[in-house]
């Protein structure tokens, strides 16, 4: 299942990009009920772990597509509208997490899980920082609100979710890979 051609964009990336986007959209909808404290339109999303997982398992293009399209679908369906910077921020989150793909050989090995979580946290930092800083220019926020009111709760919420759920998803995925043989 794990093609090591990191930047290839073929059938596999098209299909898993779509699946990741649909899953991220559905699970975001299901968990949009938890607004984070101090950030009015930033919600607590356990689905972020799924996005990071798709990046780590299938590469940066899948992470980018799943994050961008999934966030757009979830936001549009709930009436948030289209915030290109948050969608792109989510896409960047998946893309950076996807850079871990060539480093992962065994999805249940402790070292590989730590690598995936590490890249996932880096992706969350890059993606949420991009979205929060662009919000400063788009929404006219001050630095304090952008960094403390938006970036910090979004980063911490996503980080906690990723640290807890990503290892569980990776260990489950290792069993699926072993059973299918690819």
């Amino acid at each position, binding site marked *: 299942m794990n093609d090591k051609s990191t930047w290839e964009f073929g059938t596999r990336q098209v299909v898993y990009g*779509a*699946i990741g986007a649909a899953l991220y959209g559905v699970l975001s909808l*299901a968990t949009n009920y938890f607004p984070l404290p101090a950030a*009015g339109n930033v919600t607590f999303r356990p689905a972020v*772990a799924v996005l990071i997982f798709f990046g780590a398992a299938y590469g940066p293009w899948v992470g980018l597509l799943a994050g961008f399209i999934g966030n757009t679908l979830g936001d*549009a369906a*709930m009436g948030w509208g289209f915030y290109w910077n948050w969608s792109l921020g989510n896409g960047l989150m998946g893309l950076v997490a996807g850079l871990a793909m060539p480093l992962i050989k065994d999805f249940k090995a402790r070292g590989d899980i730590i690598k995936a979580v590490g890249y996932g946290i880096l992706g969350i930092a890059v993606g949420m920082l991009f979205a929060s800083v662009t919000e400063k220019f788009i929404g006219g926020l001050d630095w304090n609100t952008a960094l403390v009111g938006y970036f910090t709760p979004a980063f911490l919420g996503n980080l906690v979710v990723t640290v807890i*759920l990503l290892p569980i998803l990776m260990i489950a995925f290792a069993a699926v890979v072993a059973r299918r043989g690819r």
Partner: protein
Amino acid sequence: MLVTWKYRPRDTFIQRLDPRTRLIYMLCIIFALTLPDIWDYRIIFPLFLISLTLYLLARIEWKDVKRVWLFVGVFVFFIVGLNGVLSGRGGPGSVTNMFSPTLFNLPLKIPFTDIGWDVPITVAKLWFAIIQIARMLTMAILALPIPYTMNPNIYGTAFKRMGASDKISFTMDLAFRFLPTFGRDFMITVDAQRARGYEVDRLKGGVTERIRRLSPLIVPVVMQSTVTGEEVIDAMDLRAFGTAPRTWLKELQYAPRDYAMIGLGVAIFIACCVLKWGFGIGGFFVPDFFTNLLIG
């Protein structure tokens, strides 16, 4: 098994529109409200009425959408509305920064402790909650009818004819098609776990434990989707997907009504941009009649 949206052909104005027209119009309204950051009721309320008219023109049966409306209603009215009233956040900074008369103070306490504070409920926060709800519904009720009134067979064609590449069009097409399938899978998983005694509504423990206990809901859906993906890839590879430019079976043609709708959407978008950036109209403010209504 791929589950489809509850699409049904109906002889309505909305379904006679080209799918591209509907997507372009929706994007125009979303961009018109979000890019220039419009929070003025004089713009939002008329746009809400147009969106509502288009929704009613779709003539979707209530039994098909009542669960979706319940979901949207709980989210928009209780979660976002309540959040707006209590915090005033999620919109322009002026909601919390501007001077506004306080209607009353709401005492909030952390359960089982004496720690708490008084949250001032201001006229501005209350008006913001109303505007926020109307603004979100203006966009949501344009997106909501799409699954019920747009033929799933033309999602990909619509994106392709809007200029996207074959691969991106197919990604969008598949994402739209997989949404209801995974939604159904998620609900089946929730029901199956409930049958095993899993208490979905009563997740106990701290934040960490609650997140960890979500895994019996998330993991089966995600793992099943990875297996489904392999089957879809095999099917697409067997049809030589990606080896040459694709042809698309469905042809789309714009009619005069499509040009009219697109023209309306573009005009609304340009008007919002000009009003906000050219004349400074469109930002958040509390109208006098609302303040007078509440405090006399």
